[in-house]
């Protein structure tokens, strides 16, 4: 199912032919039609990224390209820095007291750690789905989906239409369309997580980060999310952290293996799981440790 894998993107070759567009985000967001956006994916590149919690060096010099409109999975044992690395991409890492990051994270050509970059704009462009479903308990289902737009003070858009769009894209519309005003916290775990995905795509980001989005879900809910990820990659660049190697194999176009804060290997998923070039990767994917 993941045949059209690109040539190994870990090297400096830039596989996607993307125009060096600066920030056309607003024009795109205003048009509001989801189908057209498929060609205009966005790349994220890490350049020598280091991340710290106080003196604790958790991510060590990671250089990695996330190809537009592809799913990149990050695997590795607990505590290897996967989550921290992903949180550096939308600058959520710095929310933790004492945490800091060094190096570059580029969204297309823009260094999001640049001096004149607004954190809020970065997070609007790079959405995030968390490990545990966390709908806002004070809000209804539709309120949750619209929350991102309301919270960012966006005006002049048809909220109702956007809510429906996002819920459809998250595959939740048919299940909740008759009870949009009920509290979001009343849904099942899997539905809550899809609600959180709907909430994330309602603000029309360019990249979606998923931090173990299925680890709190049962296999059937997991399957639904995985199908959804496959749908979403047509419009978004997706980075997914996962503990579940089968999941990486199922959803990801390419997979990156991390160990002790370092990027060991990044290659097309099939290669990582069949003929990895690093012995440590092989040991991990064959279950020798981790």
């Amino acid at each position, binding site marked *: 199912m993941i045949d059209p894998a690109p040539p190994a993107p870990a090297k400096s070759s830039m596989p996607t032919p993307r125009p060096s567009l600066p920030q056309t985000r607003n024009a795109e967001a205003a048009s509001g039609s989801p189908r057209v956006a498929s060609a205009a994916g966005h790349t994220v590149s890490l350049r020598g990224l280091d991340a710290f919690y106080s003196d604790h060096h958790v991510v060590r010099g990671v250089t990695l390209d996330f190809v537009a409109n592809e799913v990149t999975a990050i695997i590795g044992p607990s505590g290897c820095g996967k989550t921290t690395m992903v949180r550096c991409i*939308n600058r959520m890492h710095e929310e933790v007291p004492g945490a800091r990051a060094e190096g570059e994270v580029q969204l297309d050509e823009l260094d999001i750690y640049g001096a004149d970059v607004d954190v*809020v*704009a970065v997070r609007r*462009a790079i*959405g*995030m789905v968390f490990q545990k479903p*966390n709908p806002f*308990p004070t809000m209804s289902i539709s309120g949750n989906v619209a929350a991102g737009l309301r919270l*960012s003070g966006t005006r002049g858009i048809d909220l109702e239409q956007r809510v429906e769009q996002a819920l459809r894209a998250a595959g939740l519309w048919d299940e909740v369309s008759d009870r949009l005003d009920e509290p979001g916290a009343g849904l099942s775990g899997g539905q809550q997580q899809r609600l959180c995905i709907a909430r*994330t795509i309602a603000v029309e980001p360019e990249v979606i980060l998923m931090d173990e989005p299925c680890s709190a879900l049962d296999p059937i809910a997991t399957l639904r999310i995985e199908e959804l990820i496959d749908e979403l990659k047509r419009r978004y660049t997706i980075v997914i952290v996962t503990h579940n190697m089968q999941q990486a194999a199922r959803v990801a176009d390419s997979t990156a293996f991390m160990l002790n804060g370092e990027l060991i290997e990044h290659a097309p998923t099939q290669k990582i799981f069949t003929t990895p070039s690093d012995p440590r990767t092989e040991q991990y994917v064959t279950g020798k440790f981790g």
Partner: protein
Amino acid sequence: MTSLSPISNRRRRTNRLAKALLAGGTALALVPLAAIVYYLVSKGVGALSLHFFTSDPSGRFFGDAGGVRSAILGTIEIVGLATAIAVPFGIGVALYLVEYGKQRRFANAVRYFIDVMTGVPSIVFGLFIYIVLILTGEFGGFAGWKGSAALALLMMPIVTRSAEVVLNLVPAGLREAALALGAPRWRVIARIVLPTALPGLVTGSLLAIARGAGETTPLLFTATIVKATTFDLSSQMNSLPAQIFDDVRKAQNKLVDRAWGAALTLVVMILLLTLLARMISRRSRLA
């Protein structure tokens, strides 16, 4: 078959003894509470009448002594203004501590002083306002708003303390989710943190109000004790605790009875407020 031994008689006895001790201690602690409620109701209920609630103290030695209307309204006015000052400031300080200050040195210093302020005797707040706002003569003499100021000082640390606890209970995941959606921090606070914490904030504030409404000493030096009803916070103002304090010292039974009635009224007012707080916090609990 199994090696599980039966419960020994000694352990059964110890268990019974420990349970009995706990039950006895609880009963003992309830005695003063029950006694207070009993005396309050039995002595106070006789004083209550429509006249009691609708007339001011007359001050006449003979004949009708009047009711406590001015005291009830005065308490509502003074405590109302104190609440309007203490609750926004108190919650504001708590928001600073939880959302911005965190473990910074300044925030910890503020926390320490808030703790100290919670322990300051109420008479100190009364004296402070008396010295600063009344003895200096800059702001006129005794006035209702000065009583409110004293009560606000007393209530603010209570509000802050309880609000800090409640705000810390708001799951960090909610803040993160909102921030990750591209929300500025102030919007995260206004739209996510405060609504989620609202029931707890209301409960904490109402507890502070109940505490403030029962205070006598800060009012004696500031709003004093008068007879007439007034809606002017810049004039001297009566209040229930002050009225009780005044009546109970008098050598007339009808005035002492009025004090019991006023005490019962005050307790019932605070009880209603607490019930209201319970209802609000039950209706929408933190998920």
